[in-house]
């Protein structure tokens, strides 16, 4: 418990609203530029690198609560997904899996798998297969018509979109981490031992 409590400093707490903002701005920018992606987890991954897993989990939770408050309560059950991704990434970063490009790729893959499995399970068990809030629902429906397997179709659709999505998110966070001023990073030295190599 002591380790968890150590992460909850004022500096980390203040970082959460900003990270939530980054998540949402990333998502809005995507729809503004009409990109077929979400990119709504940049803040969570960034905060996992800066402040650690538990703060990242809270950031994921707050993001979904906020989305539920202002946009659509459908997002609420998915807070479990964001929390899991934050936790997994945080612990991976902490054990050194963000120090080089290849290690970051491994973290990215682990995060993608976590996201895919948890999100599909929620889509399947809470919503019965589709939420109808984005275009991928139509793709899922087409897959179901072709394969007649609901869970398999939900899983494979979500795997495909997540792989591309998380890949871009991690690339952005990796390049950001090497651009953030050293003076700023040093406040959060708890979680990241070595800064990624300058690119």
């Amino acid at each position, binding site marked *: 418990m002591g380790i968890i409590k150590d992460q*909850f*400093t*004022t*500096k980390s*707490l*203040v*970082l*959460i*609203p*900003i990270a*939530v*903002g*980054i998540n*949402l*701005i*990333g*998502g*809005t*920018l*995507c*729809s503004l*530029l*009409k*990109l077929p992606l979400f*990119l709504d987890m*940049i803040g969570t991954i*960034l905060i996992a690198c800066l402040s650690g897993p538990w703060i990242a989990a*809270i950031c994921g939770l*707050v993001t979904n*609560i*906020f989305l*539920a*408050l*202002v*946009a*659509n*309560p*459908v997002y609420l059950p998915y807070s479990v997904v964001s929390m899991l991704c934050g936790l997994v990434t945080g612990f991976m970063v902490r054990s050194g899996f963000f120090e080089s490009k290849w290690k970051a790729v491994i973290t990215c893959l682990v995060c993608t798998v976590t996201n895919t499995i948890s999100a599909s399970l929620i889509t399947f068990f809470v*919503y*019965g*297969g*589709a*939420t*109808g809030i984005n275009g991928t*629902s139509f793709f*899922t*429906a087409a897959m*179901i*018509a072709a394969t*007649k397997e*609901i869970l398999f179709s939900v899983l494979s659709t979500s795997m495909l979109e997540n792989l591309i999505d998380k890949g871009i998110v991690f690339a*952005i966070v990796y*390049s*950001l981490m090497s*651009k*953030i001023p050293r003076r*700023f990073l040093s*406040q959060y030295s708890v979680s990241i031992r070595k800064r990624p190599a300058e690119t």
Partner: protein
Amino acid sequence: MEMSNDFVPKNTIIEKMNPNTKLLAIISLGISTLIFPNPALGLGVLIFLFVVSCIAKIQKTFLKVVLGFGIPITVMLLFIQGLYSPKNKTIIADLGFAQMGLEGVLYALKIVVTLLVFLGAFLLMNKTTHISNLVAALTDLGLPNKAGYLVLATLNVVPQMQKRMSVIRQSQEARGVETQGGLFNRIKAYIPLLGPVILSSLIDMQERGMTLETRGFGINGVRRTTYVKATRSPMDKPLNVILILFLLIVLILTLLMKFGIL
């Protein structure tokens, strides 16, 4: 996507109720619909919610959101579950390429009704409650101050960041960054737009943290005063009792039906 909590005071009875009562209503109505074995109860609850929205004078928004969300998801789930659910035994229609089963249709309707009850109740609470009022009520229930700060700060920070992003977008466009055109062009535009927003927000946050520290945000074990007090109304207590009773009755009915007594 609209990212602000557009609360407009309308001075109705619903607005004057304690936010915790509304939260209890979401939980009680939602869970009752969820556990009850068929969609009929949920339909009744939805009609009740519509009446409440009329009292709160937001029936237009209510209908728009509930129908706008309800119709597409009903079609989608009827397609997925109605045609391809493994539980289908009784066939009610033959569409040529697939058969529509009764069990899947009922399952789909149940999910849709449950979702709509949650959505509608949540919408009613959201539209009739100012967020600071809600946070004040939750703090009364024992929510830590820091958690309350998180929700409120997020609501304040996000519009600020959006404003900052539109400024950055304009200046990047003035510098010649293309934000329209082919897919590759738009992806390339993403980084120069997002980077400055994130970096400047992080620097801004550092100042915010210092300001809060100097005002004693991190001190533990002191009694804090509040600026916003949660609203209360005489209807809160009887309503709480009714809501809990409703949930209990539905629970007992469901159990009786499960064991085949009714």
